[in-house]
């Protein structure tokens, strides 16, 4: 049984149909990457999994239990954490407080241990622990967003464009940390990325989305080798 099953999901914004029957599965322990053009509906899919907006049709199951109509906060309590598009950290709270907020749904007894783990992944956050979130650099904010998501001890981590706006060196670092979390903590990761080359190389499997539908899927290597994908997402970059 797959950890996450999205089947035939449609999502609307008013009358705009952003998802037109999406099927995606994520197996336990995998890194799955979703790529696609701007406006394809990638962020919408991640948000729909978290129940905000609600899917208009289709079903979403986590661990074999349907979560399609649960409120967002209860979905998170089931063990899905999201680092949303645009990071959305709390700007007036310190780094430490942001992390503490991320741990809202878990036993506070784990707090120290979990914070230490995040600080090992991102030592810069430790240095900045008393700095307000809003004054962090873009890259630091991204690390904080991921760190905050990790604090809820999720089993499935949803990441929306973690490399957005980062310098190449930091992009590499962000991805290597994701691979690291996946290996050492056995964390399942569902990743939305524009940075197709890095993201597909990292992933066990990948999906390509266009106009609210999945148009291609395969292992990371397969997709990387696919000429259409090379033409659409990789040319000029690392081609």
């Amino acid at each position, binding site marked *: 049984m797959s950890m996450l099953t999205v089947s035939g999901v449609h999502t609307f914004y008013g009358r705009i149909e952003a998802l037109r029957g999406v099927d995606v599965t994520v197996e336990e322990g995998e890194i799955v990457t979703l790529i696609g053009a701007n406006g394809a509906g990638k962020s919408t899919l991640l948000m729909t999994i*978290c129940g*905000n907006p609600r899917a208009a049709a289709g079903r979403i199951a986590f661990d074999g239990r349907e979560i399609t109509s649960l*409120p*967002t*906060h*209860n979905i*998170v*309590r089931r063990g899905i*954490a*999201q680092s*949303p598009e645009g990071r*959305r*950290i*709390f*700007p*007036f*709270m*310190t780094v*430490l*407080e942001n992390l*503490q*907020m*991320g741990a*809202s*749904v878990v*036993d*506070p*007894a784990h*707090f*120290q241990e979990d*914070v230490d783990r995040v600080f090992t992944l991102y030592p810069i956050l430790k240095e900045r*622990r*008393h700095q307000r979130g809003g004054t962090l650099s873009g890259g630091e904010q991204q690390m904080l967003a991921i760190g*905050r*998501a990790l604090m*809820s001890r999720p089993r499935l981590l949803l990441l929306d464009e973690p490399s957005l706006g980062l310098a190449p060196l930091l992009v590499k670092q962000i991805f290597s940390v994701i691979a690291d979390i996946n290996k050492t903590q056995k964390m399942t990761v569902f990743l939305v990325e524009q940075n197709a080359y890095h993201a597909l190389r990292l992933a066990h499997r990948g999906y390509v989305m266009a106009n609210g539908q999945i148009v291609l899927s395969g292992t990371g290597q397969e997709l990387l080798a696919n000429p259409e994908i090379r033409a659409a997402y990789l040319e000029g970059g690392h081609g």
Partner: protein
Amino acid sequence: MAPPSGTTTILPPLDRRAVLKESAYIAIFVFALAFGLVGFKTEDVPGGLEIVTRFGQVFVAALVAFVGRLGMILLREQRPVPVLWGSAAFAAVMLALLIGNLAAPAADLTRYLPFGSVVINWLVTLLAVVFFGRAVWVLRHRSRAVTAGREAVMDRVAARVQRSARVIGPLLLGIAIVFPFLPVADRWLLDIAILVATYIMLGWGLNIVVGLAGLLDLGYVAFYAVGAYSYALLATYFDLGFWVCLPFAGIMAAFAGILLGFPVLRLRGDYLAIVTLGFGEMIRVILLNWYKFTKGPDGISGIPRPSFFGLPFTRNPPDGSESFHSFFGLEYSPLDRIIFLYYLIIALALVTNFFTLRIRKLPVGRAWEALREDETACRSIGINPRNTKLTAFAIGAMFGGFGGSFFATRQGFISPESFTFIESAIILAVVVLGGMGSQIGVAFAAVILIGLPEFFRELQQYRMLAFGAAMVMIMVWRPRGLLAHREPTIRLFPQGPPVKEPKT
């Protein structure tokens, strides 16, 4: 943009016409405003009212506005020298006249003063001194970074005040406790202190909703009213005492808070403000029209005064019973009751304060603050926004209800007239000006906004104008509030592991 300090700054040329135009606009604006407000005055004369004109004052006011604006622009444009001399000369002349007038009233120096009111003359002089200070400051820090510098200075002051709250808090509390026994504390001053303390408490209560949870509530007076009427009705219908009614009043107000909370769960910002404003008015209108129950506009009188653990503050207790002074073998003094009321409100305020300080560190309080910053992010970390908002409304309302009960027992009489929108506005002003979320800031703002005007009774209706002007000035000068500073609720490593906290 900002040149590094130490280098000479090349100033952009001044557009004289634009400067004059801007100053003239202000002068015209002030003229138009003052024409109606100051230009005509009704005066009691034998046989009726007579309209006295004071156009001279209107012109002076416009002129002062013109010069003041000019000075502000010059300061902004880094040309402090004319302002320096101008303000110094003006302040010197004014001070000479004002002090001379105090020293020798017979010389009738007031003729030469620009304004009829002594207080306004003093205020204008003070303003000139402020201009002088600013000019000196600009002269010493000739750089574009002045505004940023000022913000930083105030931020640092705010941060230091917050950090030293451990010292300042108990100190102020000590002063508050001994205050009634100081020789200066007469009936009048005690009444003002009670009033200020009431607003401090209400400010702290509203601070939970507005400052912590970030829900702009313009109808806080509704909960104040619910608390006051709960106590008044319970006490008069069922003959219950203050201490029995107090928790009930709090619970009733909290229910009212939840009642308001449900329909506004999805609203934010302006829309939330409008609905809460409507809610405040609704409660007032209900109180006004439900005659059978609330006696409508007649109000409720004969509300029992609080007793000291059953001992009333009466001169002649009924036979066979004791009153406060006889029980303790004291001389009867009407001040006893006032002092007791004073301590009562101080205690209520302290409870509000400790509650807020404590809850900020608990999961609920942290969720409130997170909600203020980003509701979507809150959802995505597993916080239930509905419950979080409802608890904020309920708990904020509860303290409003406590405040209302106190008001009822202090006044002995309440009517819907005491619970108009202006009350909500004043409480909100106390919170916003103090610096949202800052406990000491709120106390500070209450003293300034509620206490100070009492000393300026001479200004009559201009008091409210000055109130408004002060508010506008603070908002321009420091939009986040005087002592806005958010102290983190958690520190790790330097001070050991965090306290274990119960699960949400």
